[in-house]
């Protein structure tokens, strides 16, 4: 059979190697983090490292299965796979809650998290859907279907509740952006509803990711500056701190931008420039005002987390306990670390860093291997991401490319949020570090995501559309 021969020839050894290296390092690291001197055997299945080895074994087995099955199956059976995963998400809501969330579907003592597998289902369906859409001819319906594919599972996940996975699902919006799925039809409908306005296209809907970045940036600035809000001295000592300062700065920037643009642009574009700047100013002020006043309506613990990450508050031994301990563990690693199994802050035994074998697995790693270890980990993830993008861009089929981008974005989200919270740059959101955190569901779902990608890639030449 030609296909079977081609598997070893066409599989992407770079990506496969990175995955295998990560799986190996993951086991070694869980063994160190969760080490129990009473059970020194790494294959002791009563311990987390023993179980992790078992999960790795199962994951590799699943990988082989994926390699054996024709890759066409995912495109063909995309909708049944999606629906199966979704049904699990429905079923899980009827289980008794564990630690306040209905996230686990138990089989004996072993449990799986359907939300982890929903990522695969969503990625496949989204890929299939986008491969059928004519990008140049989008309407409100296409936008709605794309949104529904992503957001319906998100709602189900929020019901569990599982904030971490919920956040991860927003990674699909980057895929939509990459593939040119635009929200313009939707935005046009809203904007053109205003009397006298007639747009054929807006900039907002198609460039929503840069706009999102701008909104996030503006929100952070607003929150940082509105710490001492409503202070306003104008005539004596012109300083205008607080929230109004943000508004003032936005206005000033808008004015300067207008003057510059008017000077450099042709006469014909004058009205356009004015319109863009007025809209930009209006949206900025709206965002800033909304963030400022809606922040207080957030749940208290969410507000705390955001304030702590922004450094607006200090509560090292209270609400900021986890983050502070995690940062101390990472920071104490030094250049070369304390040595394997020598973590004093982040080991499970010392328990200063909670969840150091799952969500905070980066801590023992960074503490024991120092900056060199951190460099290797970040390097591996960066390498993996680049490789996936390279793979994505060489696909002939849209389905394959979109799927590859889905994988890239999911891995990136996990990497960025998880390590971000370990080093204090992101609020504490409980999501695992792919291939490193202890836990079967995450390990299996990431393995399958990547093995499916590898399989799709190895068969890329067979695909005709």
């Amino acid at each position, binding site marked *: 059979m030609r296909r079977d021969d081609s598997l070893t020839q066409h599989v992407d050894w770079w990506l496969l190697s990175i995955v295998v290296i990560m799986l190996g390092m993951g086991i070694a690291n869980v063994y160190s983090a969760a080490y129990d001197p009473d059970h020194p055997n790494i294959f002791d299945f009563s311990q987390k490292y023993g179980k992790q080895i078992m999960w790795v074994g199962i994951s590799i087995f699943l990988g082989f299965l994926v390699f054996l099955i024709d890759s066409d199956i995912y495109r063909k059976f995309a909708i049944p796979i999606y629906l199966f995963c979704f049904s699990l998400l429905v079923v899980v809501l009827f289980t008794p809650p564990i630690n306040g969330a209905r996230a686990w579907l138990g089989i004996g003592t072993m449990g799986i998290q359907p939300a982890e597998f929903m990522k695969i289902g969503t990625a496949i369906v989204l890929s299939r859907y986008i491969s059928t859409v004519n*990008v140049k001819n989008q309407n409100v319906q296409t936008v709605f279907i794309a949104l529904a594919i992503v957001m319906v599972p998100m709602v189900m996940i929020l019901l569990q509740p599982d904030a971490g996975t919920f956040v991860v699902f927003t990674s699909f919006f*980057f895929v939509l*952006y*990459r*593939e*040119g799925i635009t929200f313009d039809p939707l935005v046009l409908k809203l904007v053109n509803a205003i009397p006298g306005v007639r747009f054929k296209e807006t900039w907002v809907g*198609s460039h929503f*990711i*840069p706009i999102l970045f701008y909104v996030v940036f503006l929100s952070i600035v607003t929150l940082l500056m509105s710490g001492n809000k409503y202070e306003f001295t104008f005539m004596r000592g012109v300083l205008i701190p607080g929230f109004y300062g943000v508004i003032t700065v936005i206005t000033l920037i808008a004015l300067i931008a207008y003057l510059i643009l008017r000077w450099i642009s042709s006469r014909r574009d004058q009205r356009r420039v004015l319109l863009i700047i007025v809209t930009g100013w209006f949206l900025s002020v709206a965002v800033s005002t909304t963030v400022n006043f809606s922040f207080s309506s957030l749940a208290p613990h969410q507000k705390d987390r955001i304030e702590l990450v922004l450094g607006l508050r200090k509560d090292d031994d209270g609400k900021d306990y986890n983050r*502070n*301990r995690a*940062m*101390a*563990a*990472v*920071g*104490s*690693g*030094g*250049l070369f670390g304390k040595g394997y199994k020598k973590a*004093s*802050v982040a*080991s499970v*035994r*010392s*328990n*200063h860093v909670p969840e150091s074998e799952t969500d905070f697995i980066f801590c023992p790693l*960074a*503490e024991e291997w*120092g*900056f060199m270890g*951190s*460099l290797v980990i*970040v390097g591996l*993830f*960066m390498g993996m*991401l*680049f490789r996936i*993008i390279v793979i*994505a*861009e060489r696909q002939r089929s849209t389905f394959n490319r979109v799927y590859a*981008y889905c994988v*890239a*974005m999911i891995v*990136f989200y996990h990497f*960025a949020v998880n*390590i*971000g919270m370990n*080093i204090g*740059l992101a609020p504490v959101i409980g999501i695992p570090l792919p291939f490193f955190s202890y836990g079967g569901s995450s390990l299996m779902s990431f393995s399958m995501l990547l093995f499916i990608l590898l399989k799709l890639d190895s068969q890329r030449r067979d695909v005709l559309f």
Partner: protein
Amino acid sequence: MNLDGRKYVILVFFILVGSIYLIRLFFMQVVDDSWKLRAQEIAEKRKEITPPRGIVFDRHNKKVVTNRSYYNLMMKEEDIHDFDTVAFAKLVGWTKQEVKDRFYQIKKGEGKYRNPNTGKLQANYQKQRPYPFIKELTIDEITRIAPHLEKFPGFYEDLTSMRSYPYSGGANIFGYLNEVSKEEIEEDRFYRPGDQIGRAGIERYYEKQLRGQKGIKYIVTSALNNAIESYAGGKYDTLAEQGPALHLGLDIQLQVYGEKLMQNKRGCIVAIEPKTGEILALVSAPSFDPNILVGRRNIGKNYPKLLLDEGKPLYPRPLAAEYPPGSIFKLLQSLIGLQEGVITPESGFPCTKSMVGCHNHPNANNLPDGIKNSCNPYFYYVMRRIIQQGKKRSIFADAELGLNIWYDYIMSFGLGSEFETDVTGMRSGLIPNSAYYDKWYGHNTWAFSTIRSISIGQGEVKVTPLQMANIAAIIANKGWYYTPHFVRSIGNKGPLPQFKVVHKTKIDSQNFEPIIEGMRRVCYEPGGTGKRAVVEGVTVCGKTGTAQNPHGEDHSVFLAFAPMENPKIAIAVFIENAGFGGVWAAPTAGLMIDKYIHRKVKDKAKEQMIVSANLLNVKARPMKKK
């Protein structure tokens, strides 16, 4: 719309986040040290190990202060579950309410610390920390309780070390230990709450030596404060070091014997080895067993009792009680007279009784007989010759000059000032000089006749028993002394340097011969006042004293050294309100000398007489404090 460019947006985004994270990691892990300090603060703890205190030995290498193991019953609230208060109370012999109260007390009071920001005391009770629930249980108590502790999870026993006094004597010498106060902790970083500190006597004076060196163990702790392992394999740990042994000049058997002799009496015995200045015994009566002040519970129970006892057992009589020396002072007047050349050993003075009273005895025709008879008029004349030497025309100016000459001599005997020595609670006594009398009477308004009572050791003169014993030692040495002290060696390093300095008096040694002869006659010749001090087999030289005082019956005083030829012990006995010195003080001194030199007392009858005598109620008055 060009979608191909969007892959670069995503790539740039990846690179941006990746580099920000790496830069951040580089700063956190390599550049900025504050996280390392924070990690140490979180995970590494210094654990101090307090060594047992140094052991104290007497001159015959007997352990006189040693350590004994006690147990604390510890509790850790976190581990307590299904606690049966009634059964527990029954086990430890408390009431249910007492158990509850103790829990409350621990939670409110233990681990208090001063908040550096507010300056207020804050309770720092933590459920994960062990606290002593009952302190200082004896081995008997803990062997009864321990087997049942498994029924009470969260409770366990913990070994501690406490002082023990095998000879039950010398309480006034050794002092006692108590928990450090907050002020002491703030003053000296060595101490931690719950540590013991010497409160009096040798324990206090040699605190810095006895407490030893604390060991420090660096350990990695968990979030629950449990030790996990030693930090860096114990590389930075230091071992606890027990304080050096103190070797005392004290003879504990003599001390205990002295305390036995002094039972039911008020007063003191001080014995010194003249050659070295080492204190052989320092009895303060009434005395108490030092073992009753071991541990918090005992101190709480017994200290107030001792404080309120009307015999004032806590008052360091031999060091702080300032008595008029009485007739023993005549020895000093004789020495000064001889040294000044105003008398000779052959000088005789009639017992006129006109100026000062006396008892009936033949006139003394020479100095030794004057001492033997303790003739008051004799020494009145001697003193007059010292004070009024006729060097000035004005009688007042002459007396002033004479008194200051006398004062300089007396001061060279270590009187009128505190010894710089290793005992605490000492007082200086009082020796008047011209300035003193000028203050009282006015300049040039007083002469010998005004101050004549000092000639026989009465009046303004005040001397402590330790100083008296030292006078005996000086006479035995013929003119010099070492500062009386307890510790002959710290570990094997010898005594403190100040105890190796010879103090010379201003009296030449040949002038001591007639005085020593007089003291011999006191004990051995007919008419001698101290014949009861005689000990078989040695020649005792002594001098009685009968100190008049405003508090009632005279104090009985005896000062002696023995043997005459090669003095091994100098002793002063002072028994309050016991009357004539020869009756009670002299035989007590004799027994002490016998005990010290022969290690065994042959004269059981005399011993029995002294031991059984109760002199407490002879016009018992509260003791005078200066």
